[in-house]
């Protein structure tokens, strides 16, 4: 049986980097289909992505990262893919590690997370962000009952069972941490695979310093809500 894999790349105004990301994946994961979810970009993201050989689903307006990624899960679910991998469109995720993430999806593991903090890597976050990362790590570890290091990584491979769940329910904004709780609550196992990310040389992070406080509050609340939410 052929195992179908879908690489999901959410992209909002990424015309500068999307072609490289797509072509890297085509070389490194030759047998996977690539889906770029164009999240209402105002630049040429969709065209560039299509020309570089990806399938492109364009959302009619900017829905936010969570809804964009979920569109990808919905696509994977409907088209019967066995595995999905979510990769950022800005090139910071090491696409060469995708096969390792996929290989980890066995023995009942439904999600493999490309993680920056399992082993010491070159990444040194600024103080406040580092603190936030630690807080979430503690919070999630406490709920899940095992150590989770990198809760905010958006570089993940997901099995069919996980795809079906996340197509049904996926957080809207800042989705990564909350999604882990949703997965855990629905009995899905996940593991972390250490990876070295490429850090942005230019451009700004989607989370500015002032938004950081809001981010912390929103995600903490979302996590607590996710804990008490009814199972799907």
């Amino acid at each position, binding site marked *: 049986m052929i195992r179908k894999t879908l690489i999901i790349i959410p992209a909002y105004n990424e015309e500068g980097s999307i072609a490289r990301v797509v072509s890297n994946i085509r070389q490194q994961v030759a047998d996977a289909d690539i889906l770029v979810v164009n999240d209402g970009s105002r630049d040429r993201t969709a065209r560039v992505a299509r020309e570089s050989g990806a399938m492109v*689903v*364009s*959302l*009619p*307006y900017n829905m936010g990262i969570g*809804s964009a990624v979920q569109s990808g899960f*919905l696509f994977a679910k*409907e088209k019967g893919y066995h595995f999905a991998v979510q990769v950022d469109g800005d090139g910071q995720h090491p696409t060469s590690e995708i096969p390792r993430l996929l290989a980890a999806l066995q023995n009942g593991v439904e999600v493999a997370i490309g993680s920056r903090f399992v082993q010491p890597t070159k990444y040194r976050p600024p103080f406040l962000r580092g603190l936030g990362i630690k807080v979430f790590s503690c919070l999630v570890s406490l709920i899940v009952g095992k150590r989770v290091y990198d809760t905010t990584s958006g570089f993940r491979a997901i099995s069919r069972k996980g795809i079906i769940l996340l197509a049904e329910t996926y957080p*809207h904004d800042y989705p990564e941490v909350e999604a882990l709780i949703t997965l855990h609550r629905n009995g899905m196992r996940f593991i972390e695979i250490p990876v070295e990310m490429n850090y942005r040389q230019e451009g700004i992070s989607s989370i500015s310093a002032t938004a950081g406080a809001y981010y912390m509050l929103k995600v903490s609340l979302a996590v607590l809500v996710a804990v008490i939410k009814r199972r799907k």
Partner: protein
Amino acid sequence: MLEIATHLRVIIGILCFTLVGIIVELIRQDRLKEHYAIIWLLTAVSIFIFGIWPNSLNMISRIVRLHHLTTLFMVAFLFLLAIVLHFTLAISQLFDRNKRLTQEVAWLRFELEQMREPK
């Protein structure tokens, strides 16, 4: 004993019937969903009860130990709170449906483009 002047009762009565009339008419014209109208009808009925039978307000005042005017405001406030909560619920539901709809539209458009493309 809480007394309300007769003319005031008439005004309250007219107000309630007008409110109920407007709501029924809106439902009839399909501009208001029955589901969301229930809370408004309840509001109208309670105002009516307080108008016709002001002592009900007095009883509540005694229970919560407030001046009856303050009680009136409290009751009104609780109703507004309920209505706002109701709206928020409606918006949340609409948000979810709107999201799913948008995702499906994007997906269907993709399918359509695929079919149109010369193979």
